[in-house]
Every structure is written in structure tokens, then in C-alpha cells.
């Protein structure tokens, strides 16, 4: 006879697999995937006979990376520093602007179009103005990194605030909380997943901003190095620098992701994450 048997009372439920699965997925797969990419790069270059002046092979790039490690490292420090400052600025201002935009419909209507307009402009066009105002040196690069990366933060924070469930806000409003308090106690925590999502985009943009600015006027930095290398027909160095940029991007992303996990663990409780 068909029947529904339920033996033993509900125990603590198991949602995740054993340890080795976790390791395979979190360490194995990215390593394998990355190795795969390098292989494709190397084989592709050799197979299609891509000229070194356009895309050097992976091995040539790694060789250049090793040979010029000192120069590359020196310049990397400069770019990293510039990027981090610009990124920090972008977080602060992006968060403030996002909250302002999410605060009131009028601010939203007034500021948003201007922000979008500004962001449709290639930052390369803005760098010269910055250089003329702030002189050569690192300030224009920091500002470019900031200018290019704050917008995703604004948009995501504003979206997050706009989509807060009013029921949660009501909990605070019922206590007579002022709008600022509602914002800090509900709006902002609730928007943190959006915010951290935007940081992943922003950090990569900040790198691009710093490098682009360095190519238009700086005496150090990976952007400058890449131009020099290009002019000296040392294309493998250009790609070695790009590789370094990628690795930096991943590192900063990983740090961001760690902080994200710490702050938005509550939101990431789906089964597959």
C-alpha cells in the first residue's frame, strides 16, 4: 500500500556537500579554468601565427614579466596606489550620492540625468582638463580613477534604496524614526548587496581609469610603462603589464568579496551560494 512514511523527527537539515567538493569548486575550478585560458592563448597564437607585435604568446609574456619584474613592480605600486585612492574616493562619494539620489525624488530627477550625461563621456576626453587644472603628477590619475568608478556605485545604491520593501521601513517609521535614521538602519543595510555588487564593477573601472590617465600624463605607472614598451616595440612587456593589471583586479576583487561575505552573508543564503 502506497503511503507516506516519515521516520525520525526532523533533524538539522544538510544543505551543503562534503569538504572536498567545496575545495574542488572553490580552488580547483578557477585554477583549472585559468590554466585552460593560458593554454588557449599560447596554442591560439602559435596556430594562427599571430604576430608578436599584436599579441605575443603567453610564454613570451610570462618571460617578459619575469625579465622586467623590477620595472613592472615599481610601476605597479604606483598604479595600485593611485587606483586605491581613486577607488576609496569613489566609494565615499558614490555612497553619498547614491543615498542623496535615493533620498528624494527631486534630487533623483535633477541629478541623475547629469550623472548619466557625464558618464556617457569617454574619460579620455576629461583627462586633459584634469591635467591642466591639477598639473602633472598623480592627482589627475586619482581623479580619473574616481570619476570612472563612482557611477556604478551611485546607480546600485540608488536602485537598492528604491527597492527596499516598505514593510521594513515601516518598522522604523512606526517608531517615529526620522528619514535619516530609516535610511541608515534599513535602507543602507538592505542595499548592501547592491552596493557590493557595484564595487566589483567599480574596482575594475578604477584600474582602467588610473591606467588611462597615466597614458595621458604621468611619469610612472603601468599605463606609462605600457606606452613606453609599445613605443620600444617591446610588446610582451605591454601584455605582461596587462597581466599584472588582471591579477591586481582579481586580488582587489577578492578582498571586496571577503568584506561582502562578512556584511551581506544574510542575503546570500540561497542553496547554491
Amino acid at each position, binding site marked *: 500500500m502506497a503511503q507516506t512514511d516519515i521516520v525520525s523527527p526532523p533533524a538539522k537539515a544538510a544543505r551543503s556537500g562534503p569538504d572536498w567538493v567545496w575545495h574542488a569548486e572553490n580552488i580547483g575550478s578557477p585554477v583549472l579554468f585559468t590554466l585552460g585560458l593560458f593554454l588557449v592563448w599560447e596554442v591560439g597564437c602559435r596556430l594562427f601565427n599571430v604576430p608578436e*607585435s599584436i599579441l605575443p604568446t603567453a610564454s613570451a609574456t610570462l618571460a617578459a614579466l619575469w625579465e622586467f619584474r623590477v620595472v613592472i613592480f615599481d610601476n605597479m605600486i604606483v598604479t595600485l596606489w593611485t587606483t586605491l585612492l581613486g577607488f576609496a574616493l569613489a566609494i565615499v562619494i558614490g555612497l553619498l550620492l547614491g543615498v542623496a539620489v535615493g533620498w528624494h525624488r527631486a534630487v533623483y530627477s535633477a541629478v541623475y540625468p547629469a550623472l548619466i550625461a557625464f558618464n556617457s563621456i569617454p574619460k579620455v576626453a576629461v583627462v*586633459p582638463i584634469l591635467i591642466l587644472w591639477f598639473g602633472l603628477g598623480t592627482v589627475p590619475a586619482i581623479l580619473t580613477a574616481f570619476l570612472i568608478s563612482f557611477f556604478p556605485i551611485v546607480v546600485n545604491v540608488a536602485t537598492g534604496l528604491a527597492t527596499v520593501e516598505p514593510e521594513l521601513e515601516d518598522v522604523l517609521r512606526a517608531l517615529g524614526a526620522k528619514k535619516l535614521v530609516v535610511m541608515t538602519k534599513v535602507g543602507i543595510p538592505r542595499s548592501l548587496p547592491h552596493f557590493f555588487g557595484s564595487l566589483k564593477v567599480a574596482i575594475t573601472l578604477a584600474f582602467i581609469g588610473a591606467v588611462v590617465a597615466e*597614458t*595621458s600624463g604621468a611619469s610612472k605607472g603601468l599605463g606609462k610603462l605600457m606606452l613606453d614598451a609599445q613605443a620600444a616595440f617591446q610588446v610582451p612587456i605591454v601584455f605582461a603589464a596587462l597581466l599584472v593589471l588582471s591579477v591586481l583586479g582579481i586580488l582587489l576583487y577578492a578582498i571586496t568579496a571577503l568584506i561582502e561575505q562578512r556584511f551581506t552573508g544574510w542575503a546570500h543564503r540561497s542553496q547554491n551560494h
Partner: protein
Amino acid sequence: EELTKVRFIHEWRFEGHVAPYLVALDKGYYKDEGLDVSIDPGTGSVDGINRIASGSYDIGQMDLNALIKYRDAADAVPIKAVLVTYNIPPFSILTIKKNGIAEPKDLEGKILGAPAADAAYSHWPIFAKLNDIDTSTVTVENVGFPVRETLLAQGQVDAVTAFISNKLAVKAAGVPDDQIVGMMMSEYGVDLFGSAVMASPSFMAEHPEAVAGFVRATIRGFRDAINDPEGAMDSVMKHNPIAKRDIELERLKLVAEECYFTDDVRENGFGHVDAGRLSRSIDQLEETFSFTNKPQASDIYTGDFLPAKNERMIQ
């Protein structure tokens, strides 16, 4: 009769000094040679040579020195120059009178603004060495192309590396004409050629008569542009409607005078190349560029497509 298609790329955008090609096109000189030529603007020699190498273009005008460096690579496509148009390269140092730089030596202790990708800057070490400049005392700042002249005008840098025609940009940045100083590197021992018409090896092999025809028609274009710069502006304006006619005219005249129509050209005809000078220039490049696979003059240039000297005289 069927016209031969020729895809041509110029190293730069359509400014006054590109007029010879545009004139030749508009006046039908290429058609006269049985060619159907398309002319595209470019973004510099490094990109341009790569595009010829990749087969996107058949012929182009690019910096001969960039070609020499390019050919050093083991896998380089054997592109060759067939007509040298810049008898003297436009590489120079620009400064302003009040900065007190009259001689190369005066650059010591000053700030030199130089875009890292600037062709003129790539020859700065040769220039410095030949003129005994202590480079450790010169502060080189990487300045982007768009701000180079403005920074010079603002005084943030004391001199810049540039093409001689960039004098016009310094003027546009508000420095009076008579205050601008242009130091041609060629006058201080940098003995290089400038840009040249170069063709892909496959095109040279398949259409040798088309290459020769292209060279002939181009020389006619140069002759017309040098003799009638005003008229040549019609072609420039046609192909670049946002250009300012008077500025482009000035640019053409300046480049023609300094680079196209030199004493050597006056005497030996347009496109004259002295094999010894070309070899020496490769040696000179070795000062700054470590060859692994140093090309010979004959690898870089061939005079096979050049018409007779009397056809190459400008006046």
C-alpha cells in the same frame, strides 16, 4: 579596362600635409595609372604597419624608422618602402623663447614634456647623445598628446618633443608665432629619413606595375601640392570638412618647406634615397634600439619602383 584596387592607409588623419595624396586622388592621377585607390586615415605608424602586415592594406605611408624597428622582429612581414616622401623627418624640439633654450645643451636642468608614444621622443636619446646633453639633468614628463602644447604654453614644461608642424598647436595655445622656437633634430645630427610609401610584399609581387603607378601618381600629387598649396586645400577640405582651411594651409607649407622639398630633393629629385645615408640611419637607430636581427638597407627600401630622375623633379 579593369582598374586595380589599391587599399592605401596614411599614417595620420587628413590634415594639410596629407594633401598630396588627396590631390592625386581628386585629380584622377591614380585612375590615370589604372588604379582604383581608396585612402584611409590612420592613427600612427605602429598601428599602420601592423595593418599592412595583416593584409588589411596594400600600401601605406608610414614612418621609415618605425618600419626598420618593426622589421627587426623574427616574424616580421617583409614590408618594404618604395618611395621616401619625408626627405627629412619632422622630429623636433619645440620651446618658447622666454625659456631660454636656443641650443640643445640649454635643455639641461629643464623639464621636457614628451608623450611616451611620440615618434619624435623615441629619437630623443640619439639627439641627446649627439649633442652631449646630460640626460640625468633633464626631467622628462610623460604628457598626453592633447595637452602637450598647452602645458608648454602654460609653462608646466619648458620644452616638448614634437613634429615641427606642431608649432601650429603651440600657436593655437596662445603663444605668438615669433615666440615659438622649433629645433629640427635633423639640424643637430639626427640623420634619419622620415615617412615613406611602403607596400606589402604580396602586393609588390602580384601587382608590381600597380606599385610603380602608385608611386608615379603620388609624386604628381606632391608636385601639385607643393606648387599650389592653396589649390590643394580644396581636396583637404573635401575630405575633412571640419578642418580650418588657413591652419591646414600653413601646416602644408611648413611641412613642405622643412621635410618634403629639401635641398636634396631639389637637387636629386623627389624620393631620392642615398643608400649610404639609409645604412647610416639604421646604425644611428641602434643607439637606442637593440636589434636582435638588424635589417640591411636593402631589406627596408627598394628603388625598383621609382621613375626616372627627370620625372621626379618638382619644379
